[in-house]
């Protein structure tokens, strides 16, 4: 795919290290994400990909290193602060609010945009109602975009896995994020669902201009979708570049296929 024209850096990771007791999940990892690009992070199981996402959105606090997002450098941050900064994410295992309908799940994604407080919401009249309707409009646009009109009132626990993933993407989109982190958006999907999801990811990137960082195991998908790929192995970045460059990289081939002894 054609890379975006701009070279403006949205997120810069500098020498991030993270360890859990004796396990060193990330060792001195540095890379950047440019504004408007689709950036893939790949690597074998246990390479530290999900840990990397968790560091980016404030779930884990790195032992060393700095994260610069939209020009602001920080090391310690709470997840809701990351959300406020414009970082949204989906999970490897779907993390929807099971007791709520698809519509309510996506509406919940609008939380940060809600301006009227407790007392207005109790009355639900005038400006408060107008605001609620306004959010509903935005959410309905996302529902249209993701083609889930028919299931909007269904409790998400009753939905099949593929649709749950779609609702989760919708919830992240409702936040109107600057950076969207997708943790294995296609895990456990069949070919058709993967094609749908790929289409949505490309559309999100094209239409909304959202920068996307995704972790994925399906190499065909990664190579087709992403502009640039970073490869992690045992917590170390072993390669970084365009899909073509990465494909030819000897270290990457060794990590995935093993080295003859």
């Amino acid at each position, binding site marked *: 795919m054609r890379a975006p024209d701009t070279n403006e850096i949205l997120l810069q990771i500098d020498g991030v290290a993270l360890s859990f007791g004796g396990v060193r999940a990330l060792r001195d990892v540095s890379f950047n994400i440019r504004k408007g690009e689709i950036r893939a992070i790949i690597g074998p199981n246990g390479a530290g990909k999900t840990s990397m996402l968790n560091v980016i*959105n404030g*779930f884990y606090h790195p032992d060393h290193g700095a994260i610069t997002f939209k020009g602001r450098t920080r090391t310690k941050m*709470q*997840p*809701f602060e*990351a*959300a*406020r900064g414009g970082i*949204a*994410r989906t*999970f490897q295992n779907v*993390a*929807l*609010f*099971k*007791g*709520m309908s698809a519509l*309510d799940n996506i*509406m*919940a*994604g*609008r*939380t*940060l945009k*809600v301006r009227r407080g*407790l007392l207005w*919401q*109790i*009355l*639900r009249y005038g400006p*408060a*109602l107008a605001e*609620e*309707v306004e*959010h*509903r*409009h935005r959410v*309905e646009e996302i529902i249209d975009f993701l083609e889930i009109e028919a299931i909007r009132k269904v409790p998400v626990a009753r939905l099949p896995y593929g649709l749950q993933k779609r609702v989760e993407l919708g*919830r*992240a989109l409702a*936040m109107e994020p600057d950076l969207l982190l997708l943790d294995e958006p296609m895990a456990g999907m069949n070919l058709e669902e993967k094609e749908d999801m790929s289409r949505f990811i490309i559309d999100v990137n094209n239409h909304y201009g959202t920068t996307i960082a995704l972790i994925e195991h399906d190499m065909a998908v990664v190579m087709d979708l992403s502009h640039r790929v970073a490869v992690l192995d045992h917590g170390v970045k072993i390669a970084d570049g365009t899909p073509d460059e990465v494909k030819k990289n000897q270290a990457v081939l060794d990590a995935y296929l093993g080295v003859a002894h």
Partner: protein
Amino acid sequence: MLYRETGQFKTAYAQDMAIFPIRQDRIGLGILLGIAFIGVPLLATFHIWPFGRDYLLWAILLPFLVLALAAIGTNILVGYCGQISLGSGAFMAIGAYSAYKLGTGVHIPLAWLGFAISIPPLPVLASILLGGLAAAGCGILFGIPSLRIKGLYLAVATLAAQFFFDWVFLRVPWFTNYAPSGSVNAPELNFFGAVVQTPVERYLLCLTFVTVIAFLAKNLVRGNLGRQWMAIRDMDIAAELIGIRPLYAKLTAFAVSSFIIGVAGALWAFVYLGSWEPLAFSIDRSLQLLFMVIIGGLGSIMGSFVGAAFILIVPIMLNLIPTELGVPLSTETITHLEFIIFGSLICYLLIKEPHGFARLISICKEKLRLWPFPY
């Protein structure tokens, strides 16, 4: 056939987001409110069956309304926000005693500072609402542990609130205005000149409170704050990642829940009991409220009403049926039988329908909408 949405087209999101989007529901609710606000008082005033005596009004409808209100409060915390609480009885007590103190005048002698804080007796309505606010304040205080602990451990922490306030109201004579017996009497129920005395007036007063608060609570739970509570309940990690602050969501749930429970406590004391002791708000009350929301349906305002009705009416039925059948049982046997039947009924219900009566009703409604072609 009757419960069908066919032909009811919605042309604006506001219509789809209305409190009762289906016309039949609106009509049903209108009829119900009509019966409650006009039918029952009329029948009761003229002593027409089944209101021949005041028994139905006094012993069933009045406690049902107040406890349903308390159950709504409990449901907001336990059902919507997922924070198990065993302290509802305590918050009812706080509402009751705060309203009592405010209604009879507060006097705090601060001898070492050389002056005293005195507040003259407030009107009843103000003291009931302020009693609710006092309960909300205590609710926030005892909700702080919920930021660290979850589930059963939180239940234990709220249990501490229950025992602490039981103790305070029993042992600190200031709260009971130094009444030697520990029992206190409610002030006159004077609402802007209209004195509420007869059972019918008391019933109407509670009904008004319950209706207004139930509507406002429903507004809240289907708005953004309600979604925040449910998000915290269903998956707190994901909730945080979409920008929900756990601190704000949990403490507002504690505050709103305690406010409603506090108002219910004040009504229970002022309107239903008239005079009361701390025993009226013991741990039994907390458990009763918890049962109500579990049986009625966690996360449902309507479920709170159904649960309250079930918990109150079943024991009475169990009492009445043997008498009607002409099987004379000793009071002891009845009490034991009541426990046995009641307990097994609850177990059976929870196994068959763990989401309570509210879920059962919504399933029925869904089926009805498609009946007689279930596809």
